[in-house]
């Protein structure tokens, strides 16, 4: 039972997430019928299911909200700010309720009655209006007929002397026509040939199909004088005339001029019913399969299962590397072919498995949109929030770690960045401020940028606050870049008032730390009165990386292929002839890092060394190594917490023969090198 309850809560949160999205849309398009329908349906579903699991409060709330949205979708109520706001408040409250298992948190109970009261007020207003509406409506009664239409088969075989008895068959049919829709099929096969016709006799007989709401007794009344010559049989409780091919079905009977007898009718009815059921079934399966298709598109998987899967994939790749090595050594053609194939497959398997753990950033966006909406309303600012690249995917753990920092960055933008509408107008800017949230891939990284067109960071204020708080001295010479870096200091904040929103001075340093934890970097660009852009750079590397395998003496290193541009050679003696701290490779000059020196490896210096040219920010740098062995699928393993103090080795990988290779973080490596040697510039 507990599992079911957990599932329900998960599903409920999913529903609520979609609901919030829809509500945000609805806020902008208040007439959009499909959105109203969706909101109504979610309320309805939540109401129904929450009672089952003991969430009566949720049920109560959603019941009333359902009523409100029912009125809206019937067109009796227009959506107002008040309604949207109370719906959002209710959603937030429901989220709390779903987590308040025992339903006894006082604050929740209080909030519950507050919200409920507001909704009830809205409803009672509507009901007042309805009462007047209803009394108007009662003056025109509706002609709605609730009876159902049935189909009858009437076989009318009058005696030949029917005309002498004064019965006009045509008149009977006219009466039938009043009762409903008819198809009358005459049969003339009993008419004798001309010599034998007696004109006073009737040789015709008819089959009649009648769809009517009237009682069978009424039909009988029509044939009251020819009771023995007619057979009335109800063949369907529904109106068969509504079937598209009903008339086609009947046609053959008329053509054949056969008598329809009981048996044939039964067959006929059976066939028609089957077809009808088939059509209904088809429609139903269409509906369910449409729903099914929608559902089959994604399934829930527990993250533990995913972890197991990823581990297995990693182990698999390590073993495959071993196999490839053995294949190389044994030089058996068939084995080599299989090993190569296995390598290709393992690469695909790895890409596929890891992409399963990737989630599009759009999942995070709802809470940002809510934040912008609520906060800008509270602070009386007008802000347009635009997102780009919402389909960019990130590892789930990264997304979880990014949520808080991004919220903080957004808060800063809204609170400090975007100016009040009046001030913006004074500056010649549009009244509405704009915040752009952008995500995109570049090289081996994912970038997330939050840009606003606000007032920019006030660097003067930063300077004075830093002096006031003792971070720098009065006469310190600092560039703009340095001042921006200061904002990342713990305890720093230029806000005069500590608002609930920001200003507690626990901001950017925490942001920086959290992003560093997922091996990312934060940079700020700001221009006075134009705006501020905060960029977060994250590594795309998950735990398996395609890397270039290189060697220096007996040490193995791996360089992620994403940053590698090309490789070349250089004679060791030529290295001494460097000019301007650049080496010439294939006609171009590159700054370089001599890794033997960096890593203090002295033994076995080769005559000719190799350069690996890698991309660093927007330039190219050469890394000098002994030899380049080739490509390697590196299963990244963490090297241990005691190495946390350094950041140039991002992990280790187990090679085919069991030896270890260290994975280089070239960005950090070059950055550190740059900082140490001013000559690099």
């Amino acid at each position: 039972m507990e599992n079911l309850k957990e599932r329900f809560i998960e599903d409920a949160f999913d529903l609520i997430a979609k609901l919030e999205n829809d509500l945000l849309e609805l806020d902008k398009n208040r007439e959009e019928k499909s959105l109203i329908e969706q909101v109504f349906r979610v309320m309805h579903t939540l109401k129904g299911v929450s009672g089952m699991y003991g969430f009566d409060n949720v049920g109560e709330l959603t019941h009333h909200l359902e009523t409100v949205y029912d009125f809206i979708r019937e067109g009796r109520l227009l959506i107002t700010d008040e309604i949207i706001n109370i719906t959002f408040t209710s959603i937030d409250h429901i989220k709390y309720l779903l987590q308040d298992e025992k339903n006894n948190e006082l604050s929740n109970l209080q909030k519950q009655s507050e919200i409920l009261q507001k909704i009830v007020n809205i409803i009672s207003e509507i009901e007042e209006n309805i009462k007047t509406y209803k009394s108007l409506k009662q003056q025109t009664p509706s002609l709605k007929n609730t009876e159902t239409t049935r189909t009858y088969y009437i076989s009318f075989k009058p005696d030949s002397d029917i005309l002498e008895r004064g019965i006009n068959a045509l008149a009977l049919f006219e009466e039938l026509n009043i009762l409903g829709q008819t198809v009358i099929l005459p049969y003339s096969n009993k008419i004798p040939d001309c010599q034998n016709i007696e004109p006073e006799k009737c040789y015709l007989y008819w089959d009649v199909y009648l769809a009517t709401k009237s009682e069978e007794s009424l039909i009988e009344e029509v044939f009251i004088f020819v009771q023995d010559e007619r057979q009335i049989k109800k063949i369907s409780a529904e109106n068969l005339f509504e079937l598209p091919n009903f008339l086609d079905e009947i046609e053959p009977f008329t053509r054949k001029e056969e008598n329809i007898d009981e048996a044939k009718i039964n067959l006929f009815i059976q066939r028609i019913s089957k077809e009808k059921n088939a059509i209904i079934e088809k429609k139903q399966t269409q509906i369910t399969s449409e729903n099914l298709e929608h559902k089959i598109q994604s399934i829930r998987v527990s993250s533990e299962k995913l972890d197991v899967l990823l581990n297995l994939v990693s182990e698999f790749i390590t073993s495959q590397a071993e196999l490839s090595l053995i294949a190389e050594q044994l030089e058996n053609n068939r084995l080599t072919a299989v090993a190569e194939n296995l390598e290709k497959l393992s690469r695909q398997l790895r890409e596929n498995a890891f992409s399963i753990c990737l989630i599009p950033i759009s999942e995070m966006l709802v809470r940002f949109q809510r934040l912008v909406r609520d906060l800008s309303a509270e602070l009386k600012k007008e802000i347009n929030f635009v997102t780009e690249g919402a389909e960019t995917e990130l590892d789930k753990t990264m997304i979880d770690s990014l949520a808080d920092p991004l919220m903080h960055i957004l808060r800063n933008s809204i609170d400090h960045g975007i100016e009040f509408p009046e001030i913006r107008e004074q500056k010649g800017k549009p009244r509405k401020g704009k915040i752009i949230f952008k995500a995109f891939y570049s090289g081996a990284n994912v970038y997330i940028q939050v840009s606003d067109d606000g007032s920019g960071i006030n660097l003067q204020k930063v300077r004075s606050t830093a002096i006031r708080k003792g971070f720098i001295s009065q006469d310190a010479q600092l560039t703009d870049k340095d001042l921006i870096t200061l904002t990342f200091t713990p305890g720093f904040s230029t806000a005069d008032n500590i608002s609930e929103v920001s200003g507690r001075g626990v901001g950017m340093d925490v942001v920086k730390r959290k992003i560093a934890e997922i091996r990312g970097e934060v940079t700020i660009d700001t221009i006075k009165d134009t705006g501020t852009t905060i960029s977060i750079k994250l590594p795309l590397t998950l735990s398996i990386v395609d890397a270039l395998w290189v060697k220096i003496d007996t040490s193995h290193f791996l360089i992620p292929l994403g940053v590698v541009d090309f490789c070349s050679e250089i004679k060791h003696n030529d290295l001494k002839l460097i000019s301007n701290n650049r080496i010439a490779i294939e006609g171009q000059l590159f700054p370089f890092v001599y890794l033997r020196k960096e890593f203090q490896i002295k033994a076995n210096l080769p005559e000719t060394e190799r350069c690996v040219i890698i991309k660093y920010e927007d330039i190219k740098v050469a890394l000098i190594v002994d030899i380049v062995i080739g490509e390697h699928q590196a299963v990244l393993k963490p090297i241990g917490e005691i190495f946390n103090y350094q950041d140039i080795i991002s992990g280790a990988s187990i090679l085919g023969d069991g030896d270890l290779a260290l994975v280089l973080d070239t960005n950090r490596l070059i950055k550190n090198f740059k900082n140490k040697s001013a000559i690099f510039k």
Partner: protein
Amino acid sequence: MKNETVENKNSYLSFKLGNETFAIAVQKVLEVLEIQKITKVPKTPEHIKGVINFRGEILPVIDTRTKFNLPVIEDTTRTVIIVIDVKLNNKSMVLGAIADSVQDVIEIPESTILAVPELGNNYNHNFLIGMFKIKNKFIMILDIDKLFSGEELNLTKN
């Protein structure tokens, strides 16, 4: 079963670094490995020898001799890596520590542990739980949690 755990608490693995004998609680020892090729990690302090492949996981290896400023002698067939479980900030961390040889598992009841004199020895006595006298020799009992604790290992960036 209960008796065993009580006994385990007093069991210590003794090992030699150069001429000196040390001991650590058996409960902290996960395994003893033969010395093997250690992959050096660049830009690390002297006493961190590098990393090894420990059944598919990466194990950092500390040179305890360097840590204690003892002369490092050539590896012999008796040189081992003792795999230990260190408590760091309430988390478990697995490390390897190099020893010149392992000796025995000995019983050291708590009451027989002697305090370490402040003067007259090379080793920072903060790292020692105490000393134990056996056959006219002294064994230093290591407090490896303290020995490999954060301050020592998590060197700040220069």
